[in-house]
Every structure is written in C-alpha cells, then in structure tokens.
C-alpha cells in the first residue's frame, strides 16, 4: 500500500496543465498542487458522482487533460458510469482511483468485499481500453509516465493507506479553502471558458 500524499507528489511531477479533480485526495492535494486554478477540490457534493462529473468535464473540454482521483467507495456507488465513460471514450480522461478498502470519513468501516475486488478488471470489462492496478509507490511511479503518455480513457486503481477520521464532522480540519462555486469559476477563468 502507498500513502496518498506520496502518490500525489509523484503525480504532481507529471501533472502539466491538466485539470485535476482530487476527490478524497483533496485534503493532501491542496498542499501539494502548485496550480490551484486548475484544481477542482469539490470535496464530496454527493457520493458516487465524481466519475460522472469528470466525464462531463472531459467531454466539455476535449483539448484539456482531465485527471480524477476517485475512490473505491464512490466507484462502488456509481459503478455504471464506467460503462458511459467507455462508450464515450474521452481521450483526455485519466481516471485514478484511491482504494483504501473502507469508508474512511465515517470511521473506517470496510466497503463490500473490500479486499477482493479487482477494479482494473471491472474497468476493462466495462470497456476501458487500458486499466492498471498498483499496490506499491515505486511501481506506480515507474509506470505513470507511460500511463499519461497514451490517450485515455484509462483507469488506474491505487491501493492506499486509509486516512480514517473518527472526529465528529464539525470538529474536522477544514481543508477546502475555496467554495465549490469559486473553485469552478477559477478553473473556468484559467481555461478561458464562460458558462
């Protein structure tokens, strides 16, 4: 297993001018990213929808790379979006998934069948042309340039240590420094689109 922050630091070296939706990695990404105006740290508007949001964004901005750090809990909830992604085949979409095997923000309860799901196999079965799975940081770091060099959609499952939170929600560190609306506006200005 790797630590999410370490993995994101590796990714950041290859980020380029991609729009990044950090998902549940956002709590670490805000301190790593150097291009905040291309980040969409939306937190969790509603579980299960990040893949679909990223698909929509990728379709809207086909000339801009869109990178999502999804999570296995969200993918389990909205798994059918893998079919839609595969059908639409956005070449600019890079779908990473942080698999900590649990619902970390509610105290670490395991997701269904937590240790026995091959999400890369599911993605390939859904029609993604490429899919990978990594347990170790070194292997991921070595493969990442090749993953990003080829067109998407590509799915990459990453086993990560959970960042379990047991404090009441009102007592947790507030890592989102911008509202969701502001983050979207900042991104739109950066890529020069009006909505």
């Amino acid at each position, binding site marked *: 297993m790797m630590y999410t922050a370490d993995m994101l630091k590796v990714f950041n070296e290859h980020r380029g001018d991609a729009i990044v939706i950090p998902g549940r990695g956002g709590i670490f990404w805000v301190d790593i990213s150097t291009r905040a105006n291309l980040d969409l740290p939306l937190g969790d508007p509603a579980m299960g929808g990040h893949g679909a949001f990223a698909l929509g964004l990728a379709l809207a901005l086909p000339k801009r790379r869109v990178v999502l750090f999804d999570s296995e809990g969200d993918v389990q909830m909205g798994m*059918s979006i893998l079919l839609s992604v595969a059908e639409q085949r956005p070449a600019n979409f890079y779908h990473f998934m942080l698999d900590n095997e649990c619902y970390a923000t509610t105290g670490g309860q395991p997701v269904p069948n937590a240790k026995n799901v091959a999400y890369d196999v599911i993605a390939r079965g859904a029609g993604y042309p490429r899919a990978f799975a990594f347990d170790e940081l070194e292997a991921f770091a070595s493969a990442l340039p090749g993953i990003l060099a080829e067109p998407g959609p590509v799915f990459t499952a990453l086993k990560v240590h959970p960042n379990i939170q047991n404090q009441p929600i009102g007592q947790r560190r507030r890592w989102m420094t911008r509202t969701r609306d502001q983050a979207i506006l900042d991104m739109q200005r950066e890529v020069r689109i009006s909505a």
Partner: protein
Amino acid sequence: MNDAVTTAQLSPEVVLNELKKQKVTHVVWLPDSETNWLYLLMKAEPSLHLVAVAREGLACSTAAGLAAGGKTPVILIQNTGLMESGDSIRGWLIGLSVPVVLMVGLRGWTRHGVTQDTAAVYTEPFLNAFGLKYYIVESDADANRIEVAFEEAKKTKRPVVVLVADEFHGFNR
C-alpha cells in the same frame, strides 16, 4: 395520424426545436416511456451529443461536469429516475448551482385524476420537497414553457424541471 388528435399531442419535433433554440449541446439521458419518441430525432441531430447513463443520478453529476466545462446540457429521464436521483440533485445540481433543465417523463400522469401509478403520485411532492420549480408540458401549445424553464434555470442558477406529460406519441409514426 389523425389530425384531430395531433393538436392535443406533444410533437418530438417541437421539443427538439426548443432544445436547439436554447443551444443545448449535450443530452444526458436514460430512456423512458415518454421520451423515446424524441430519441430518434436527437440521434440524428448533429448539434446534439448524446451521453447515455445507466442510472439517473449519474445524469445529474455528468451534467454538472458539462456545465462546469462551459457546455449546455439537458437531462432527459423518467420521473422514477428523478426520484432515485435525489441526493445527486441535492449535491451536484443544487449544490454546484448548475442551471440545467431536466426534461422528465411523467409516467402515470392523469391530470390529477384517479392516479394509480405511484410514480406519478410522488412526483410533484418530490419536486416541492426539493424546492424545484417545474412546468408541465402536455401538448405543442405548452411548448413555450420549455423556453421559460431554460430562462429560469439561467436566471436562478438552479435546476428547473419540465414534466413531459404526453406518452407514446412518436411510436405511431
């Protein structure tokens, strides 16, 4: 088709024209019994990009992403799926201030007559519970309500619903 019946119906061509007038770019959809008649026309329309989803809540988050990227999506689903989408409507559409129109097939509509389909029984209370403005469109005469819905969505930066209350027309072509 019987001309006497035509005037009481909602033509898919009229709906498609309304979408084109609003410069809709993407239709995020899942088939239903009311809107199949529109599908064939949309598929053939070069200005529209259809994005199929397998669960209606994902139409909401997909539309949110499209809107964030500067496009003009419309969501095309059935009232059953509207209700399934509740948390996605809350978080992705209302939460992200997405000015999107949801064209929702109103399965079971009896014009507030004796309604036996619970899908229709719960649709309007569901919309009222979420504070979503909605317009019922039953025939071509109501089609201008679609434009009203789009304008209201833009003005309020909130989702607005068009309930499509005409069933099966377009199958008999």
